[in-house]
């Protein structure tokens, strides 16, 4: 199995504060990876480096075989088409329906509107929200919003799905459903998932997941 994401001695600091210090991490194709650590430890930085929103100060970040160094903005956009990202705050477009939120991303990358909507409906079915397609996203609960965000990410059939504290704002029931949806995407669809969270309890929900701990700027894999 090839590596989907590699961090090689990656350092990153903000305003003089070292967040990552020669950190190493390898995510292979088909992996479900938990990145665990307390708030403010560098999980978001790791995710942002992974979707090429940031560049490392030192070291190499290799995403889907492409070294982040020297990538032009246009190239970054091309790589991002193969990456899905979900966030704690969902980042949904509040002036659109559930279906529009999911199909919007496809239409922007050139998929015809009719096809995009059909695929969006399928993605919503997969996350259990087929009956909410026409609703305004503002009427959804937090858990439902996060599943819309997952559908938006999955509809593009990404090779890598990055989740930055996706359950941070959710109650236990909604959290379980989100984790289950991501596990399903990984096991059934083969999507590689990197799930950043501070919640250790989630590990039980995905027994086969690899676990990385982030501490003092280092990323260490823990054998289960």
């Amino acid at each position: 199995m090839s590596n989907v994401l590699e961090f090689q001695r990656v350092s990153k600091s903000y305003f003089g504060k070292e967040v990552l210090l020669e950190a190493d991490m390898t995510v292979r194709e088909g992996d479900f990876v938990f990145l665990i650590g307390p708030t403010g430890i560098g999980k978001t930085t790791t995710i942002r480096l992974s979707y090429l929103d940031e560049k490392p100060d030192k070291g190499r970040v290799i995403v889907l075989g492409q070294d982040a160094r020297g990538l032009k903005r246009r190239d970054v956009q091309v790589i991002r088409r193969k990456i899905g990202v979900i966030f704690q705050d969902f980042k949904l477009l509040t002036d659109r329906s559930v279906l529009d939120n999911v199909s919007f991303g496809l239409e922007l990358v050139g998929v015809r509107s009719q096809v995009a909507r059909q695929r969006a409906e399928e993605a919503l079915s997969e996350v259990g929200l087929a009956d909410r397609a026409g609703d305004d996203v503002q009427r959804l609960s937090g858990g439902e919003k996060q599943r819309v965000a997952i559908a938006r990410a999955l509809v593009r059939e990404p090779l890598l799905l990055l989740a930055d504290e996706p359950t941070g704002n959710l109650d236990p029931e909604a959290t379980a459903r989100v984790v289950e949806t991501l596990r399903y995407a990984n096991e059934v669809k083969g999507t590689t998932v990197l799930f950043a969270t501070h919640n250790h309890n989630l590990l039980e929900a995905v027994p086969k997941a690899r676990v990385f701990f982030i501490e003092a700027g280092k990323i260490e894999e823990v054998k289960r």
Partner: protein
Amino acid sequence: MKPILSESIRAYRANSLMAWFSVISSFLLLLLFGISSVITLGVLGLLSEMRKDLCLEVFMKDDATPAQIAHLESVVPQLAGVQSIRHISKENALEEFTQEFPEFSEIQGLLGEIPLPESYRITPKENWRSAELMGMLAKKLSSLPGVEEVYYGGEFLQGAERVYRSVLFVTAALFIVVFVATTFIIFQTLRLTVTSRKDVIEVGLLVGAPIWKMRFPFMLDGCLYGLFGGGFAALALMGFAWVIGNVLGVRIPGLEWVFALLPLSGIFLGFIASSSALSEVMGR
């Protein structure tokens, strides 16, 4: 194209009040520039008309000798800037004078002789028909033997050229003011619009949409605001031109260029403004 147009409409709706403020401001500013351009063209037209008939009148002394006259007739056509030379005899001069002032048609009978001097009418080449060059030519002609006086309406021409330069200066200054003000207003509007639609841009960038697709709706909006402002200004100016043409009977040449220039300027300024706003909010 559909998501781009749809996003363009959403961007407009997100900030429609400011959008109309931009359009109206652009309209007023470009109209001001248009009016100033029309005045400049009008003055230029008058000046061109005046220049068509420009000539230098070289009046000979009464005691000018045939040798001096012959010298003048041979030298003047060789001078730089001279297109043609025509001799105006006393009789021709009187004929022209009485045609222009019929009330003095008895002047020869009263005085017994023609009181007008012999002269030469010198037509300068087209590119010499300015106060400065004609002044130089007049100076050379005055220095020829037998010449009493050279007249070409220098002060009047200088005055007309000064008026034209002033109007041109005001129009140029106005162009800069309109350029900066219109760009600034559309820039501010687009900056607010882009900021209010930042979530869409963020999502678009996250899903890997091409950068141009994220920029295009806002660029389109900026260009449209400029186009509408400039278009309305052109329409208003057409009305103004119709009134002065049909009511006052004044025809100004080159107006069609101003009508075309205004919407094009609007699009150009909208393009610059929206590019700058996007660069500021989205980065380059």
